[in-house]
């Protein structure tokens, strides 16, 4: 019994860009919330709509955590997120404790620390609603980096038109590069074009965003032989691994053979290694 459905309290819920909201929840109500809310960057929570015509929980990535508080950033796309956007301070909200596998950063730091003289650059590459989970990730990585001057954390962010979370990310990253597809702000183009233009040598890639972006980035990282972790999105049923609704095909070595293995995005992911995902589909 390591997971729970709990009642959280809304601390604030504000529009931060057209159609985009940031909600902060107090999760202390859960008896062992501090324990349960030991979230890893890249994990998500299930939000349970109140409107009973909607049965399924809405998965939203954890954007930021601070003691018993978690912050989410979401776009209003349908009835569930519309309902969410109407919640007011003090309202109760049914949520799950953190779900899924987050980004794997321990192995990276082990590798980096093995060679104390080496300089390394870590890049966060995100687009649209893939940006929120980068904040918790940036915070976690930066905390680990500490005063270590050899390691640089850079964010490449792509937006449709209006940008958000830039300031927050800037406080954890050494550099933040922004692209908007409509050219409202920063580089006029996609985040991948921006990255190419900047021509920065990166050693580790962490990404979240639309599938075509992830796919292109995976191809890029494969070419330059750099490790990549991506967070995938899939239409979910349960969000905790019971319904097999959210499958994604991966390559897995088993008994020395490469095999196609279906994995659950909600439970085995949402974070996968770029190399393991079968993108063709």
């Amino acid at each position: 019994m390591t997971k729970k459905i709990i009642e959280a309290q809304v601390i604030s819920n504000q529009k931060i860009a057209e159609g985009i909201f940031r909600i902060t929840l107090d999760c202390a109500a859960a008896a062992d919330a501090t324990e349960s809310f030991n979230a890893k960057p890249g994990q998500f929570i299930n939000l349970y709509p109140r409107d009973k015509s909607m049965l399924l929980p809405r998965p939203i990535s954890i954007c930021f955590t601070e003691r018993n508080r978690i912050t989410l950033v979401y776009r209003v796309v349908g009835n569930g997120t519309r309902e969410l956007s109407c919640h007011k301070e003090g309202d109760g909200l049914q949520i799950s404790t953190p779900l899924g596998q987050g980004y794997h950063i321990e192995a990276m730091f082990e590798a980096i620390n093995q060679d104390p003289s080496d300089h390394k650059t870590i890049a966060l590459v995100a687009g649209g609603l893939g940006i929120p989970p980068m904040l918790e990730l940036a915070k976690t990585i930066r905390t680990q980096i500490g005063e270590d001057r050899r390691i640089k954390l850079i964010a490449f962010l792509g937006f449709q038109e209006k940008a958000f979370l830039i300031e927050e990310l800037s406080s954890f990253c050494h550099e933040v590069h922004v692209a908007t597809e409509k050219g409202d702000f920063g580089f006029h183009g996609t985040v991948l074009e921006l990255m190419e233009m900047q021509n920065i040598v990166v050693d580790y890639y962490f990404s979240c965003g639309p599938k075509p972006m992830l796919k292109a980035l995976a191809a890029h990282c494969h070419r330059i032989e750099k490790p990549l972790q991506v967070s995938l999105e899939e239409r979910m049923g349960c969000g905790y691994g019971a319904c097999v609704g959210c499958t994604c095909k991966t390559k897995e070595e088993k008994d020395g053979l490469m095999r196609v293995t279906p994995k659950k995005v909600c439970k085995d992911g949402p974070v996968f290694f770029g190399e393991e995902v079968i993108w063709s589909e």
Partner: protein
Amino acid sequence: MSKQDLNLDVSKHRNLDLRVSIAGITLENPITTASGTFSAKESGAFYDIDELGAIITKGVSIAPWEGNPTPRIAETYGGMLNSVGLQNPGIDSFIKEELPYLRTFGPRIVVNVVGKSIGEYCSAVEKLNDTEVDMLEINISCPNIKEGGISFGADEKLAAELTREVRKYSKKPILMKLTPNVSDITEIARAVEAEGADGISLINTLLGMKIDIHNKRTVLWNKTGGLSGPAIKPVAVRMVYQVRRSVCIPIIGLGGIMTGEDAVEFLMAGADAVSIGTAALIDPTAPVRIKSELIGFMNRYGYQNLQQIRESML
């Protein structure tokens, strides 16, 4: 020791006896997991699996099945559609990788079996003969998979033939899981009973569709999917009621059970046990919550066992 004392002994809940016997197998309580909506590892992260009466596994076939491409899930008003398409790693992998873990728990193990031909069903059930599985649930009804499934459950003769053959090959009790997408459910129920089914599970999902009008395509890759959840409960209750009055073998009732009161509704309609499906996808702890709500109902009205509930309808 009187029977009353015995009941007190076997039950943790005052003098309630929640036990039910199906095909000679005793379940500690009538709460089971609907096929395809339970994972021992993942559900076990939310509640104590030993609280269950039985675990009904997701559909297993003789060879691994890939299932359908995604999206596989769509939400509808008071329901959901799934087109998982019975993705499973095949019976050998199930026996080797999953069954030993399931056996570490107390509840009865019921394996849901799927196939594309009678031969496939028979091969799969045969492989389970010498395992520690308690019972089989033969899914003759899944509407997701194009190659088979639907035809068996929707046709009286095919359903009978499949039952006869599976009965021949299996040493375990077999429950036939029926599809609601038929003109007359009692006809199918009588046919499988006549051919030796030890029990009946109903209902499986209703065939449905959702269209994303903004993107002008069906939400599910597979176009159609199985409708489950509280939306379908009235159809399920009706079918359990009809089938209870048509056959003598035990019935596992399911379809949209969300609360203990819903479970009681199925028991009153004539079910011997119930399965919790979609409810557990929404609220992972639903099976244990529903169990305690059932106990609450029994205490409130003074029912001492399930038999009394089943026989209470006026």
